[in-house]
């Protein structure tokens, strides 16, 4: 937040006084700054926000990652990472936000996402005089950019740029290492029954791509298509990744289910893995970790230490 300062000179006080008045009036908006969010909406803030409400779990993660946890005033229902976030007041779920709860919390900034939160919610909040800043990260790089933007909006531009730089370096390292390598087919299963995967319009696909793999379902018309097992057999993926939201249980069984199909290269070569879905489905800082893990699973030759069941969160 930049505040232009005018010093008071000696002679011509009247002129200066008047000038100051005019400039002060003129400069009133300059005590704050204007930002343009992902929807190109004009968001004006008079001072760095102290009470921020996050309308999506990935935004919550980003805020904590930037060290802004103490400024978080409210979160949505499934914001359980980091664990401290669970104690914050809840404002509904990210699909159905409770605007009244938000108003009760008297925030000075609300951070929302484009695909989850409805425009109606945003309008309601605007009418109540609360600034709403919308982000829309669709890829890994956009996620890093979003981290920087949120830092900027929160008045921590330097810190944001530094952290974004760190993440970018890690990203470029992976991209560089996998650059010349052959791309194995990676089948990502995001649901057990029915079997569902992802097409190119998802961040999961971006992770696979950056990690040096190719998603056989990329060109399907549906974003989260339900797939016949036979189809997977026909694709003959080299790696199968099952993304899970829980430990063991059904997902272990799902993996065992695949182990019966020896005609699949991934099964023959014991390349059926479980990956915590939070690491690859969410545009948050952890996605870089997810990318590293996926790269290690898809291209174990890069770093043998990374070749293991990636169930732990970080």
């Amino acid at each position, binding site marked *: 937040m930049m505040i232009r300062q005018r010093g008071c000179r000696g002679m011509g006080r009247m002129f200066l006084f008047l000038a100051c008045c005019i400039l002060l009036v003129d400069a009133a908006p300059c005590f704050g700054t204007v930002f343009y969010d992902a929807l190109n909406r004009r968001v004006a803030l008079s001072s760095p926000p102290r009470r921020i409400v996050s309308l999506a779990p990935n935004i919550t993660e980003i805020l904590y990652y930037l060290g802004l946890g103490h400024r978080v005033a409210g979160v949505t229902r*499934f914001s359980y990472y980091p664990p401290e976030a669970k104690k914050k007041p809840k404002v509904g779920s990210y699909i159905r936000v409770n605007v009244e709860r938000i108003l009760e919390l008297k925030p000075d900034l609300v951070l929302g996402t484009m695909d989850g939160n409805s425009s109606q919610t945003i309008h309601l909040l605007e009418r109540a005089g609360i600034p709403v800043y919308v982000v829309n990260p669709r890829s890994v790089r956009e996620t890093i950019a979003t981290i920087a933007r949120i830092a900027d909006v929160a008045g921590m531009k330097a810190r944001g740029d530094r952290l974004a730089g760190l993440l970018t370096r890690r990203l470029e390292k992976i991209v560089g290492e996998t650059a010349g390598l052959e791309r194995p087919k990676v089948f990502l299963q*995001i*649901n*057990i*029954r*029915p*079997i*569902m995967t992802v097409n190119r319009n998802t961040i999961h696909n971006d992770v696979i791509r950056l990690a040096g793999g190719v998603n056989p*379902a990329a060109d*399907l018309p*549906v974003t*989260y*298509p*339900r*797939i*016949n*097992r*036979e*189809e997977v*057999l*026909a694709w003959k993926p080299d790696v199968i990744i099952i993304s899970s*939201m*829980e430990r063991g*249980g*059904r997902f272990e*069984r799902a993996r065992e289910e695949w182990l*019966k*199909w*020896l*005609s699949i290269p991934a099964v023959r070569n014991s390349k059926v893995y479980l990956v915590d879905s939070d690491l690859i489905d969410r545009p948050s800082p952890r996605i870089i970790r997810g990318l590293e893990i996926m790269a290690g699973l898809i291209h174990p030759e890069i770093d043998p230490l990374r070749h293991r069941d990636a169930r732990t969160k970080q």
Partner: protein
Amino acid sequence: MTPQNNRQTGTTISIRPLTAGTVVKVCLILIALLILTALFSTMVGTAKITWGQLWNLLLGNAAATDPARLVIFRIRLPRVMLAGLVGFSLSLGGVVFQALLRNPLADPFILGVSSGSAFGAVLGIMLGLGFTFGIPVLAFGGAVLTMYLVLVLGKKRIGMESSTIILAGVIINAFFTAIIMFFIATAANDRLHTMLFWLYGDLSQSRFAESAITAPAVIAGFLILYCFARHLNVMTAGEEAALHLGVNVGRAKLICFLVVSLVIGLVVAFSGLIGFVGLVIPHLCRMIFGSDHRLLMPVSALSGAIFLIAADTLARTVISPSELPVGVITAFLGAPFFIYLLRKRGSRWTGS
């Protein structure tokens, strides 16, 4: 139809009632059709499999590592078998309930078995139970629970009064549907897809074990229900008339209701809710084969099996590589046909 001579008077009429022979002949034809459909269905799919390959596989001549073997025996055949069993049961249930309730809109789900089963399954999905054991058990339990509730609510002095029973079923349906809606509204994303797929019928991951469990129950259920085929015929004349003619109406209704509910509850626990089969197939068969339940029951059941195998084949091929829930296909095929039936025959449902 052979002419029938009356010995005492010598008058001749050219029809005679249904004989066991006719029933057997028609059923054999339908069974042959069923086998053909099943075989054809196993041949259709992403992996191309020829008749020759299929023949070899079935005879056990193929190599153990033949990839087609896995596809046929692990994916397609279990699916075809379950589809056949489910279609058989749904259609049979539809015929029986239409006769018991003398209501052409009756299907096996009218008395709430579907929503109770759905409630159990959705609850199981919410709790994260598996599809091997947890969810089917809960789904079946839900069906049994609704069955019990309907009996308690719908029972009157003579036996089960049709309109009361239907009302009880409707109310119970509404109640459980509301609970299911609540679950859907609060479910996390991954559970949601699973629930919705189940609620529209999901045969996609059938295994032999499922068919092995349901087959004996379905066959036993059919045999028991077939013993009441004559009863159902007579009951079409009205419940009081049936009593006069010697049918123990209360007992027949109770046993039929229990058997159908149990079989449908079991079958639906594995396949999810597949609509229209139990509604449309019996009507179609009645149009072709008449209303005599001694013929209608096996014919309907077999036709239901054929229909559902065909529908499921479509479900997994029409938007390949993606899959539709089979209930969507049955609705798309069934609804227009039902509209056509209504326009042609109004509310009368006549046989041949």
